[in-house]
């Protein structure tokens, strides 16, 4: 299955993307020479802890970065034979919501509190389908709400966001994102703010939609468990860099980067005996990461060698579809 995907052309390709932010302490490289490939009808997970650059990477794809603080320093984002970073505002508008959609983390702040739900869904349909009349739009909205499992859709379209629950709001956001049948859906921590049983409902919904529509998904999360449920491939980020990519099984069962391994091992699960000390990654992300010449993870790595302080690791292919940025990748057999 994976070999076939390797031969396919990616539907989206991020090449050498670097994004910086202007802060009081100078320039901060939030995303540092990131390369990503999204293949058709697959889900790519981007996983990492806070500040690793995963959300900024996703926002860069549809150019929703805050101005003027964020600057795209270098890179190309190839989609449909175009570089998204070179498109003019009109061309960008025709892609956003239509070809590439986004679901954000906070369902409350993503919906306009003073507009009814029906109106907010209609907005995106009208924007990209100028020839539909009112009845057709209404029908489409009802169908969308049914597709995303919202009960009583005819009633819901006349309600305001505050009248429905968090899980329901997230379904509305998903409905808006799917309204124009995009080829790519970017989901940025869409279940983090939801309760466990509601999260399970939303995960099942996203899986079902992915199966039915053949859409490609970029799923961003700090939760490895959720990524494992939804994604086919995953990219692990640390301090603005992608340090490992591969399919789910390789990353979880044979992690090659000490950070990935540390992350997986530090999550409590059934394999840990209760009340025993968990394996942790010592220390924290260092300040002034940009000034570090060698590997950004070196100060926390239990396998670090002296050369890791001075030489920046390049990406190497350790097995089919499995890449790692480490001078001494862990033996995986």
């Amino acid at each position: 299955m994976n070999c076939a995907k390797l031969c396919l052309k990616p539907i989206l390709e991020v090449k050498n993307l670097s994004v910086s932010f202007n802060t009081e302490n100078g320039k901060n490289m939030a995303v540092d020479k990131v390369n990503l490939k999204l293949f058709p009808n697959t889900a790519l997970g981007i996983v990492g802890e806070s500040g690793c650059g995963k959300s900024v990477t996703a926002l860069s794809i549809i150019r929703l970065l805050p101005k003027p603080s964020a600057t795209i320093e270098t890179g190309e984002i190839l989609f449909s034979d175009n570089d998204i970073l070179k498109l003019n505002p009109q061309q960008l508008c025709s892609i956003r919501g239509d070809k590439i959609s986004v679901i954000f983390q906070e369902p409350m702040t993503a919906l306009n509190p003073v507009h009814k739900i029906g109106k907010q869904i209609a907005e995106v349909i009208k924007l990209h389908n100028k020839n539909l009349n009112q009845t057709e739009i209404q029908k489409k909205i009802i169908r969308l709400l049914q597709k995303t499992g919202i009960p009583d859709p005819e009633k819901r379209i006349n309600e305001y966001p505050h009248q429905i629950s968090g899980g329901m709001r997230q379904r509305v956001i998903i409905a808006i994102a799917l309204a124009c049948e995009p080829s790519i859906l970017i989901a940025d921590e869409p279940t983090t703010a939801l309760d466990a049983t509601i999260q399970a409902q939303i995960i099942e919904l996203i899986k079902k939609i992915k199966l039915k529509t053949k859409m490609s998904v970029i799923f961003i999360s700090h939760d490895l468990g959720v990524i494992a449920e939804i994604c086919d491939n995953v990219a692990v980020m640390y301090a603005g860099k992608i340090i490992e990519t591969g399919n789910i099984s390789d990353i979880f069962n044979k992690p090659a980067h000490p950070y990935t391994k540390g992350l997986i091992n530090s999550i409590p699960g059934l394999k840990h005996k209760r009340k025993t000390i968990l394996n942790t990654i010592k220390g924290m992300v260092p300040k002034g990461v940009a000034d570090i010449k060698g590997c950004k993870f070196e100060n926390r790595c239990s396998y670090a060698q002296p050369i890791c302080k001075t030489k920046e690791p390049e990406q190497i292919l350790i097995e089919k579809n499995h890449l790692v940025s480490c001078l001494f990748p862990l033996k995986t057999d």
Partner: protein
Amino acid sequence: MPLLEVKNLKTYFPVKSGVFGRINEYVHAVDDISFAIKQGETLGLVGESGCGKTTVGRSIAKLYEAASGEIIFDGKNILNLRGNELRKIRRNIGFIFQDPFESLNPRQTVYDILEEPFIIHKIKNKKERKKKILKLIHKVGMPQEFLNRFPHQFSGGQRQRIAIARAIALKPKFIICDEPVSALDVSIQSQILNLLINLQKQMSLTLLFISHALAVVRHISDYIAVMYLGKIVEITDSDRIVLSCLHPYTKALISAAPLLTSAEKKQRIILKGEIPSPINPPKGCRFHTRCPNVTGICKKVEPKLKSVSKTAKHLAACHLIKTD
């Protein structure tokens, strides 16, 4: 005798509405909860939003006022205590909050924050306080130099260490941990969990660990109580909850936590609908509106928490579970 025994605890919050702010309804946040924790043990309290777990913690610490019931700590019902007597008991109950960015006074240095419990409980000698503070900061794995800094100069994980140092300052017997690692990154979470596990061993602490993260709770707890809409629906030891729980809500909760199930992707239990409002909880069994096994009696009669095992300590509140 257990160190803490909670009996029929009820905590309600009034809901003011209308132009005159009249109280028409109450949020039944905690609605008749009973449990006990033995010295040295950890009870985990899990549940989703609105289940009442945070209110339980805060009611025990008397940060919220209970409507009725008993909270017997070290043989005394703390709901009847006032003034000096209450202050004496409070030395033995520590509290760690969820948000490390809000639970520390931003205008106090770490030294001031850690000195406060000693001042309140009348450790008069300044030199003695300093000695204790130096020991404390070391105990939570931070260097002495940090004592002169302010909370905003630290990361979430470091602030949580400071909060833990404050909670253990007076060497309490019991600590209530309200989602202490939920706001932290995974790699920092494990550091803080390890710190709590070590401190518990060293100081023979008894813990009430409140969290929505089942995997974390299972790791640190001896027993787990599952809450739903103000009630305990199941309570048993941690491994038993994960491997052989009986209540349909617990089953759905366990199945919703991906890393707790086995490596093969099992069929998920997806509950229909949303969590009802705690202002007007459903009649009968509060879970009946979402339960896949609902029957007639579930809609009318509230099930009592009863023993469901002859061999292990295992209680569940469900009409359909038979004792084994």
